[in-house]
């Protein structure tokens, strides 16, 4: 089959709402969104705290966060595998080769990205607010909360970076998920598998959906950033 034929077949799979295809898409979204939400809950307050507080060893924390941003996914996959495997410390939970293991691996990958990028955003904002906050007598807790709220039109870009990392990730989820059909097969691992098997239609259909998702998320964030309201509050 030539490339045009592959593209047509891929389009047909999408148009016909192929159950196998959408099972993979749905699981991908579940894993990615769960990981990003949990990473935001962990990473945003952490980034805000590091950005807004001055403490001994802060420079080292920033350095570690920045280094962790570039963690190789296969290394993360390996580490999570070792922890979750039967002989690992959390082996008793029997999470290996489950979507939960994939979510854990993605959290490890995405949390440092969200923490490090939000730290920079919050720190820039805090430099502007610091003296006024000191004058108001703002407590540490209120400071973090207020900074996160006031950065609400900038932080979606940070979250988007996390979504991008999670949704495009292959290595870690392949290792801890095992790419098991109907259980842990997500878009990226399916694309890798189907391409190697020569089933290019399904691989291309998944690729198109992946690109479309990236487009939708970017359009959403651009729309958010571009509104007049955002302009007034950013």
């Amino acid at each position, binding site marked *: 089959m030539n490339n045009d034929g592959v593209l047509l077949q891929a389009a047909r799979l999408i148009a016909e709402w192929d159950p196998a295809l959408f099972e993979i898409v749905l699981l991908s979204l579940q894993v990615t969104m769960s990981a990003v939400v949990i990473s935001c809950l962990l990473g945003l307050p952490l980034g805000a705290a590091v950005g807004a507080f001055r403490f001994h060893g802060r420079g080292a924390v920033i350095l570690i966060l920045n280094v962790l941003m570039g963690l190789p996914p296969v290394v993360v996959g390996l580490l999570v595998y070792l922890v979750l495997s039967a002989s690992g410390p959390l082996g008793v939970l029997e999470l290996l080769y489950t979507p939960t293991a994939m979510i854990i691996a993605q959290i490890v990958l995405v949390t440092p990205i969200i923490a490090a990028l939000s730290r920079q955003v919050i720190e820039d904002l805090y430099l502007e*607010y610091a*003296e006024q906050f000191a004058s108001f007598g703002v407590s540490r807790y209120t400071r973090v909360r*207020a900074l996160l*709220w*006031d950065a609400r039109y900038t932080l979606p870009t940070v979250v988007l970076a996390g979504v991008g990392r999670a949704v495009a990730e292959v290595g870690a989820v392949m290792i801890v998920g095992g790419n098991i059909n109907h259980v842990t097969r997500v878009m990226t691992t399916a694309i890798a598998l189907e391409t190697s098997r020569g089933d290019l239609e399904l691989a291309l259909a998944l690729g198109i959906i992946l690109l479309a998702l990236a487009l939708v998320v970017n359009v959403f964030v651009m729309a958010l950033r571009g509104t007049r309201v955002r302009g007034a*509050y950013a």
Partner: protein
Amino acid sequence: MPKCDAKRQSSLGEVIDSKIELPLISARDIGFSLNGQWFLKDVSITVRARKRTVLIGPNGAGKSLLLRLFHGLIPASTGEILWKGQKLSSNSQECQAMVFQRPVMLRRSVMANMRFVLGVRGFAGREQTRRAKDALEMAGLTSLASRPARVLSGGEQQCLAVARALACGPELLLLDEPTASLDPAATSRVEELITAAHERGIAVVMVTHDQGQARRMADQLVFLQSGRVAEAGDAAAMFATPKSPALRAWLDGRLFVETEAN
């Protein structure tokens, strides 16, 4: 309940129950140094309740620094600063409010900016709303309450900054060049607001480079030069008969050469 004087809780418009001559701030021989350089040295000033004290002097004289020391934003290197005879603390800071040269507006609406500081200072929901509305009305900003604070004009933002400071009912208002870079109309609105606050019994310490403003606003004048008090006293007397050559030069609009504080 806010920690500042309980007599001040009910209304922004109440006349403050303070004795006229009560010293709010007593700064004794204070100095501030950084990396071996002295930016303020041997400064002794008393700020009295219900009085307007204006700090003047050339750039780098230490005027803004002195305000920050009074407000407890940075500690003095030497000497002591007392608030009503007690050491500066978070309680004394809550009885003061400071407005900076460039107003810092939170990325929220005008009303949300007001409510934020009132919440931080411990005022409950309804009291927050009442105080915010009163202060905005006083500043002539009621119609802008729902607008994003950062889209207001420079003059409106500075009025909002003063209103936000006054909403908490401070006993002392510290103003660091509040009308710098504002046009005459906006300057007039900010001055009216400060005057209204003073008429309600709030003491004011203001830094300015504007001689006309100093003449309009000062009860007490402090002329700082090279981190020291070159001359201080009754404003009218100082304007009429300046004693130091530096103040005479400043009043004449002439340049004079700075000397090192240390």
